């Protein structure tokens, strides 16, 4: 089991034991399609990602809950 922690676009992504994902301390539920080895989340319902970290970065980048776009 591996742990990973990084700051991506101002958000702290943490993956514990390869499976427990948090962003800025918030637990993120996700689905793992074991047949195709893809990850997805209700945050981004139209895409499956190749890794949990890739999913986490996409959530940070593309959801209004975590992105920080300014007018």
């Amino acid at each position, binding site marked *: 089991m591996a742990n990973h922690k990084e700051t991506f676009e101002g958000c702290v992504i943490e993956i514990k034991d390869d499976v427990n994902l948090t962003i800025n301390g918030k637990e993120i539920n996700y689905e793992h*399609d074991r*047949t195709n080895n893809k990850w997805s989340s*209700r*945050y*981004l*319902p*139209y*895409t*499956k990602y190749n890794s949990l970290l890739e999913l986490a970065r*996409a959530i940070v980048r*593309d*959801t*209004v*809950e975590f*992105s*920080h*776009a*300014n*007018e």
Partner: protein
Amino acid sequence: MAIRKDANTLTAAERAEFVAAVRELKAEGIYDQFVLRHANAIMNAIHRAPAFLPWHRRFIFDLELELQRVSGNPNLGIPYWNWPSGGANASMWNDDLLGGDGDAGGVVRTGPFRAGEWTVINASGLPAGPLMRAFGQSGLPALSTQADIDQIMAVIPYDVSPWNTSSNPSFRNQLEGWIGPDLHNRGHVWVGGSMLPMTSPNDPVFYMNHCMVDKIWHDWQVRFPNQGYLPASGGPFGQNLNDPMDSTPSGQVGSRPIDVLDSVALGIQYDDAIVQPPPLPPPVIVVGAAPTPADIGAPGETDIFQFEVSAFGPHTMFTTGPSDTFMTLFGPNDPTAEVASNDDGGENFNAQINRNLSAGTYQLRVRLFSPNTTGNYAIGVRSDGGPVPTIPELVVDGGSIDASISAANESDLYRFQITAQDTYTIQTTGTTDTFLSLHGPNNQTPEMASNDDGGISSNAQLRLELGPGEYFARVRHFSPLGIGSYSIRVTRG
């Protein structure tokens, strides 16, 4: 009647009307309620599952009613995003409709939904910044082509177990985008930005994307009228034909898939900007001819054939060959009325149906027993010889004939002779809910009149003026599955 048009064909006035209506709904707070309805639905209840299409049909239908209300135009329809001609340079992205791509940071700064004019909300309903777009930068650089659409338009059935992103063959799963060319998901991902999360209705192009999805489903329904919504039952709760769908309030129409299957009944009319190939007439099988070669070239495919029965009599419908076929018979003269089906009634694993058939047009639908295999076969229909049974004759003012509908979809045919013009009554009696049609004169085919409950109780009765000639009365149960005994007679007056 909502008239839905290709977004790129809207006139300046139509664009202005649509934009004004959307902005009015935003000002009223109604627009954001729709964002939240989608954002807070259970993801796997409205996506990645059979209800994906009916849920979104109902969703955009409801918004359309609101657009009609605020615009005062009962014909206002959500425009559809015709992907093959809807790329970044298409007019739908002009400043008078949707505005264009985001800037280097993804912020939309053109059009009526630009930063400062339009604020998106998060799943809690709180303001969350400007609308974001990043055309082609989220992993899918190109939009769907017409060839992609044509490919998916040929897929049947509607959906299949396990009713998720693995379902195959599945029209729903392909249209949604989890297998095959990817149509719906591609629209979201190509736009990027605010179209990526569950709050994607923040971008008005969401509705145009789903209007295109809905149009393709509608076109597919027209093309395959016998391919119904699946699962009818037995699937996960919320996905079956009569289950209430998640996050779907009561409204002008019901909240079940069955409530939204018919676009026309919902008052939706699409323009003809996308020309779909018309449904081909089924190949005709000649009764008594050598079996017609055919094959199931794609898993899940169903072949449809048509044949004519000229006169009542015993017939055998059969397949031959190495495939494990499953055959269903429909008719007469109604391709939705199922008469019988069979799996292995013939040689080896071939299907065979033996029935007495009335005169009329019938359809045979053949698939392989396994939805995952392909194979060839041949199909034929033969009349099983012997003298053609005599059609029972009713004598005017004579006695009744006692009979019964003994099998689903059975119909009984009678003849009677009229020698003098006058008013005549044809009626059934008994406890069976009969349906009566009158044909003639001197021909079994033209229908002159029909009746369900014009007689006593649930009996049928026709009273009309007839001239000299031979007439034919056909009796069936009102319910396609119903059986029961009855009596029939013809009287003068």
